[in-house]
């Protein structure tokens, strides 16, 4: 921090200027990530619910003595739970946080600062990726402790498939979260984001394969939730890259982003 001969000309002597896009974006990302992690409900959504789903699913499958398509329950459930975690933060947390940023005038105040709007968006994306990465680390740890073994067939392809699924899934859900947050009031956003999360968790093909839904699975695989779940399972269970699901996610991301750009109201 330079002081630019402030003594000579007075404490408040003008010395305006932005601190540079990179610094501003990093500062914004740090701030948003801190606020996301500080929020108890968000943590519940981000970590606690996925862990419960994983533990509950594995325990229930163990009691029923069932295996899925010849795979151990934990091997099939883990990719779905990771997908659930991505969805919860990228969609629900982003929508709620952004909705209240609009309501509280945070976006307005930042709109008068040197941070440009694309910088604000970049900061948000960065914060989101940090939180998603932290979630994945915790959930992978829990899954490994439960005996999870990702497909050993082709590790580089597994990693590539995972990165593509998480990246495109985050983009798709974040653009939809912003779409909701930019159009509705904060309370309506809160309600809708939670409702959609619950519906997709149960019936969206995230945790369970779309094949488990019978004929409805044909529709569900085109939802962002079904596509993300399938892409994760392909990568981690079969060490394959599910091109169609990734394309579905990319399309949702694009459509969501375009609609958001058209409809987002900053105040």
């Amino acid at each position, binding site marked *: 921090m330079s002081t630019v001969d402030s003594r000579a000309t*007075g404490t408040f002597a003008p010395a305006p200027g932005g601190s540079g896009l990179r610094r501003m974006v990093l*500062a914004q990302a740090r701030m948003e990530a801190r606020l996301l992690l500080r929020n108890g409900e968000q943590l519940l959504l981000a970590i606690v619910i996925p862990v419960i789903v994983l533990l509950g699913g594995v325990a229930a499958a163990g009691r029923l003595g069932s295996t899925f398509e010849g795979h151990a329950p934990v091997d099939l459930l883990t990719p779905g739970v990771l997908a659930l975690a991505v969805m919860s933060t990228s969609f629900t947390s982003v929508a709620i946080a952004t909705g209240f940023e609009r309501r509280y005038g945070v976006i307005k105040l930042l709109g008068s600062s040197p941070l440009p709007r694309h910088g604000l968006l970049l900061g948000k994306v960065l914060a989101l990726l940090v939180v998603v990465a932290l979630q994945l680390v915790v959930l992978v740890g829990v899954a490994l402790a439960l005996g999870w073994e990702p497909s050993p067939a082709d590790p580089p392809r597994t990693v590539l498939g995972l990165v593509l699924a998480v990246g495109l899934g985050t983009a798709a859900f974040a653009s939809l979260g912003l779409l909701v947050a930019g159009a509705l009031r904060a309370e309506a956003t809160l309600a809708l984001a939670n409702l959609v999360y619950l519906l997709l968790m149960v019936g969206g093909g995230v945790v369970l394969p779309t094949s488990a839904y019978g004929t409805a699975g044909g529709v569900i695989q085109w939802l962002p939730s079904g596509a993300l779940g399938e892409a994760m399972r392909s990568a981690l269970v079969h060490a394959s890259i599910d091109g169609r699901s990734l394309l579905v996610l990319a399309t949702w991301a694009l459509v969501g982003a375009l609609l958001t750009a058209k409809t987002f109201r900053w105040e």
Partner: protein
Amino acid sequence: MPSASPAVEIDGLVMAYGDKVAVDGLSLEVARGSITAVLGPNGAGKTTTLETCEGYRVPQRGTVRVLGLDPRRDRADLLPRIGVMLQSGGAWSGVRAVEMLEHMSSLHAHPLDTGMLVDRLGLADCGRTPYRRLSGGQKQRLGLAIALVGRPELVFVDEPTAGMDPQARRTTWEMLEEVRADGVTVVLTTHHMDEAEHLADRIHIIDRGTLIASGTPAELTRGGRSATIRLVVNRPFPDGAPESLRAELGPLTEVRQLDEVSMLIHGPADASTLGRVSRWCETHGVLPQTLTLGQRTLEDVFLELTGRELDTPHDVLLPRPAPPNSAAGTPS
């Protein structure tokens, strides 16, 4: 850096929300290095005007230039050079006061020392308090710190002392005066005439979206058609004293008895009025202990110009189906 061109130039600004005209052909200028107050009742169009200068709103008609720049087109160049204090809000509900200030500071190249701002604005006690639990006055002080932290050339402060106790108010005034002394231009809105009178080099009085008077506080309060005389006497007035005094002073005068020994007289500001009040006291057997001719206040100015009291908020954004001046009429 000082330049002859004004810090803010507004020319023929018209802003409407639906059929409600908020700003109706407003033109004004703000000189660099001054404190300029935009004074008016709630709903006069002050905030809309400020938000147009800050680039939040597009002028529907007319032009706005801030530091010589178009607030919309040249937004990226303008924003680093101005500081903004919103009328309310602006922070995450869970962010701590000092954390918020430090975040805003990190967006600027040469920010002020946040510790200095925290101390000077008395925010040390609530530095770790989440924003949602700050008092109204604390939020205002934090908002002022945020507006100043980037060392702007020009700050817009919207109702800076709303909700502040008198002590915090004085601190804020002192800081704004120091800011001006260091070469920063200050534009503030207020509906407190004492604030405008105390701080401003120049006052623009706005009512229903138009400029109704402009000048230094002295220019605005000088002369005028009326004055307030305060009379306190040594023993109770006789019955019917206000009516009798009004009859003595003429029909343009208002007389209000405050208690049994004091009265306020509002009327023509000429020397003979004082003499006649004094003669009336003599004939009614009371001795004036205080007889003062009050300075004309901005409140009087506003009352004369509009027929309303400044602090009485009138209907926000009055609908105007038939604007008196078609050149500044309702935009379609």
